[in-house]
């Protein structure tokens, strides 16, 4: 890129061809106030706070710096009396429309409009303060968020992220001028629209116009603790920020700096853990006596398990693990099972296929021109962020999506073609014609994908969606085998949060002589466990996981576990010591 030289506020500064004036200012630490600008989404100059004066023949021209390309030799002023006055006017207009009475706004203290109003010393508003007649309907139809158009400043950040970043294409604008309003789909309530609750709009809204219901009024940014970690609800391994206050979990946000997701999260990672998890926490060790689980001390519970493991024939011992666990814990589990000679060990999700591709880079999705999705849904359940990364690319005309699946999947409305599995050959032909095809698949589609691999050789990339969260960690620990409940009379389960267990497996476990479960929640294990060993949840865990890309990602502890709850590895070590 060619270097360009500009004069900004009488100082010579450098930029690159293709930069906007705002880019150049930011690169050179020149402070230009902004409001609608947001890193990572296209600028549109809707708020007009970032205006600058550009000198030319005649009077200086006033332009929004975020949308004006910087050119070599430009002479620019960013902070004149005139600009300050104009910015103040813009702010007063924004504050005068709608409801900007901060005393009863959940965003107060964390609001970019308020910050600017303070910065410009606004102590009264020249124009009449009147709520707009158009936008008094507060939309609280969505389960996780509330949209209050009265506090909306029409910066369009939410519209841009919903469409361009998360690819969900739900939000838009209706009407023009003072009647303009953010709408969902064709004007439906958000709860009845196609909104998939990814929450990206909540995270970027600069004001109190979109709020996370649960955390509203629970603490300002300066009052809460933020812990960067990794989402433990599927194998994308999205980077998140866990927001807590006094050891209480408040909210989960996407980490803009994290590689796989760059700030995006899906409903499973952002909202469900705090809104939808309603199982009772396992918070004390328990032993079954007279067919009832009863409170015990850690010593009693560990002794009961150690006794059983010690005196059971090793061929009758079974081990079942959840991939919610960190790689370190999975390796420890594998080591202790080996030490005991137990071989009937596997993951709750079943055996894991070990694909030839040891890893891939999700950001390659941006360079692909054809996406073939085999077996996966990507619109609900796991790996939704991969769905977003694909959908947002489909905005570009020459990119196509092909679904190979006998069922209807959620991505079909975005797809160019929906093929049956018997039509796999057509998909292979399309890949041959494409420049940069990427095949996204899961273990259900192994056979089809093997065939594609054979025919396409190196001409396509294959992205495996592992069945569990840390399946690659389980592979690294050698835990890819199958657990056979019929062969085990004494079963040790390291369940962590896992609760989605088939009835069949549960009923088989019920028949075993002895089942010990190391778990975060009582359900469904209280039905089958003889001993419950309470362990941490995602926000209390520390270690690493290996995501679908093969990247090792750090999981950090945001809050302390309840008093009697122990970390997974501590339980395993204590048990190993007792067994000797």
């Amino acid at each position, binding site marked *: 890129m060619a270097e360009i030289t500009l004069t900004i506020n009488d100082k010579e500064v450098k930029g690159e061809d293709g930069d906007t004036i705002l880019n150049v200012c930011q690169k050179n630490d020149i402070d230009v106030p902004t409001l609608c600008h947001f890193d990572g989404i296209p600028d549109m100059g809707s708020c007009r706070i970032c205006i600058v004066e550009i000198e030319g023949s005649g009077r200086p021209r006033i332009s929004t710096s975020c949308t004006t390309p910087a050119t070599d030799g430009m002479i620019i002023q960013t902070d004149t009396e005139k600009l300050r006055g104009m910015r103040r006017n813009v702010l007063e207009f924004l504050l005068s429309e709608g409801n900007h009475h901060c005393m009863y706004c959940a965003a*107060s203290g964390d609001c970019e409009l308020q910050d600017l109003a303070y910065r410009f*010393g606004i102590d*009264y508003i020249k124009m009449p303060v009147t*709520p707009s007649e158009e936008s008094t309907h507060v939309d609280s139809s969505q389960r996780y968020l509330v949209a209050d158009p009265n506090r909306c400043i029409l910066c369009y950040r939410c519209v841009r992220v919903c469409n361009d970043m998360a690819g969900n294409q739900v939000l838009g604008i209706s009407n023009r001028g003072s009647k303009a309003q953010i709408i969902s789909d064709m004007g439906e309530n958000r709860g009845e629209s196609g909104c998939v609750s990814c929450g990206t709009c909540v995270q970027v809204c600069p004001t109190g116009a979109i709020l996370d219901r649960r955390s509203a009024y629970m603490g300002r940014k300066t009052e809460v603790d933020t812990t960067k970690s990794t989402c433990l609800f599927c194998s994308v391994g999205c980077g998140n920020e866990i927001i807590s206050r006094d050891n209480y979990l408040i909210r989960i946000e996407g980490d803009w700096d994290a590689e796989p997701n760059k700030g995006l999260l899906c409903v499973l990672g952002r909202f469900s853990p705090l809104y939808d998890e309603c199982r009772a926490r396992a918070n004390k060790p328990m032993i079954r006596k007279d067919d009832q689980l009863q409170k015990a001390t850690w010593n009693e519970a560990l002794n009961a398990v150690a006794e059983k493991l010690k005196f059971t024939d090793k061929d009758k011992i079974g081990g079942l693990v959840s991939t919610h666990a960190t790689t370190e814990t999975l390796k420890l589990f594998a080591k202790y099972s080996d030490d005991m000679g137990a071989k009937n060990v596997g993951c709750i999700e079943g055996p894991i296929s070990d694909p030839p591709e040891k890893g891939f880079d999700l950001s390659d999705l941006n360079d692909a021109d054809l996406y073939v999705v085999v077996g996966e849904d990507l619109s609900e359940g796991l790996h939704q962020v991969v769905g977003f990364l694909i959908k947002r690319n489909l905005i570009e005309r020459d990119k196509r999506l092909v679904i190979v699946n006998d069922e209807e999947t959620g991505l079909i409305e975005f797809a160019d073609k929906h093929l049956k599995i018997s039509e796999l050959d057509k998909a292979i032909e399309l890949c041959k014609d494409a420049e940069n095809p990427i095949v996204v698949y899961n273990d259900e589609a192994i056979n089809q994908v093997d065939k594609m691999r054979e025919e396409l050789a190196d001409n396509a990339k294959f992205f495996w969606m592992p069945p569990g969260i840390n399946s690659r960690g389980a592979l690294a620990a050698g835990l890819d085998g199958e657990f056979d409940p019929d062969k085990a009379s004494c079963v040790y389960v390291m369940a962590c949060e896992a609760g989605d267990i088939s009835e069949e497996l549960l009923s088989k476990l019920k028949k075993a002589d002895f089942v010990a479960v190391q778990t975060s929640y009582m359900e469904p294990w209280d039905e089958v466990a003889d001993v419950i060993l309470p362990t941490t949840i995602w926000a209390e865990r520390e270690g690493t996981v290996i995501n679908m890309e093969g990247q090792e990602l750090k999981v950090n502890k945001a809050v302390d576990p309840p008093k009697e709850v122990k970390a997974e590895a501590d339980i395993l070590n204590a048990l190993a010591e007792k067994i000797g």
Partner: protein
Amino acid sequence: MPKVTVATDWLDVCAGCHMSLLDMDEHLIELLSKIEITSSPITDLKEPPEEGVDVGILTGAVSDTHQRRVARRMRERCKILVAIGDCAAMNGIPTMRNDLTPDDVLTRGYVETESTVDGKIPKSREIARLLPQSMPVHEVVKVDVNLPGCPPSAESIYFVLKELLEGRIPTLSGEYLKYD
């Protein structure tokens, strides 16, 4: 040196701003060596003296004919008028009724409230009439200093009064400029 005279009054408002004034605690005692509070809604004397005061303080928005009279009287009787609180400076809570007509507001309040039986909108010449819109003080009379906040902190009220005593019109920023 004669003391600087100060009068306060309230309009469409809760008592929070006046509570914040009292919340100055020991600063109030310090200030009282330099200023004299001639009248206020929370003292025996309610109305600003006819001979006038140096500083007039108003809290609250202007929403009815009585409040408009009170605002005008304070303006006439003071040299420097200070509007304290979000309601006085920026219209605040009373703005909520601005997309309704006064009739709607009264009907809701006196007739439709869930606990009301056979309610009637009271009518008497002695009762002030609601203005079509509630307004911040500066829309009715000239204001010299606006101090927003709901309520503004005791420190910011103290800051404003100290600045005025020093002969300066205060400029608010940092901790002294808050809307909540």
